[in-house]
């Protein structure tokens, strides 16, 4: 069996994990940021429309209240989606690390 230099293996793994985090986790963060901005812009546009409709008696106060509640629920739905995506990405990250360890170590043996 070949001799294994653990320091060398560990450094290779460290570099691999950094690069894996950059592709997996950072990709998720920028996507979440962009989604959040889109959602805020959409929310602003909706609130403007609904307020105008309420002022023009096109919707009732109860309907406006319901729509604002919808907006809050949509935000909650989006938050759950982001948590789910983060968890899926974390699973990807974990299995990426495992593959990295296996490939690095078995490549030496």
């Amino acid at each position, binding site marked *: 069996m070949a001799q*294994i230099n653990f320091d060398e293996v560990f450094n290779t793994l460290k570099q691999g994990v950094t690069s894996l985090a950059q592709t997996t986790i950072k990709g998720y963060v920028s996507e979440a940021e962009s989604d959040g901005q889109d959602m805020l812009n959409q929310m602003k546009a909706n609130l403007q429309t609904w307020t105008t409709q309420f002022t023009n008696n096109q919707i009732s106060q109860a309907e406006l209240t319901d729509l604002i509640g919808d907006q809050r629920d949509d935000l909650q739905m*989006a938050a759950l989606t982001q948590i789910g995506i983060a968890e*899926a990405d974390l699973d990807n990250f974990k299995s990426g690390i495992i593959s990295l*360890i296996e490939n690095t170590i078995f490549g030496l043996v």
Partner: protein
Amino acid sequence: MTKLYVTLQGNVCEQGNKLLIMFKKTVFFFSFVVLISMAGCTPTISLYDQYAYAQAISVKVDALNLMDLATEDYQSHQKEIAALNVEIQKIYEYDQRRTKDSLTVKQWDILKNPNGHLLGSFLNNWKTSGKLSTVYIGDKKTTVTVAFDEIIKLENHKNK
């Protein structure tokens, strides 16, 4: 002769010890790799499910089409409303039985809650009011679409 024997015996013992240490290290090393692999194999969230994805899209289309009918009397569309509720119940039950799928189940809970907002409150308001205005229906369709899209988006992002 005795000296040579002792030296040889010492060398054999030293070699044996080295081999034993190497063997122990190897066993420890492979156990570590196996344990790490096992830990990494346990997913945090359910995997992508084609049926759940397709059903969410199907229910979304049916719900939005039904919402357009709310300018008409609630009583005359009871059959369609009941059919939509059954479709939602089916996918809800399905998602409930998937392991580690609590986030999607929570999303369905929010969407269909008759005492909350979104689709649940829309159907409730339709029932109470008899008919709804085109403007309100249009506004509700925007928010309900976002809610369905979040369920669909989450399913689509699960690992395949």
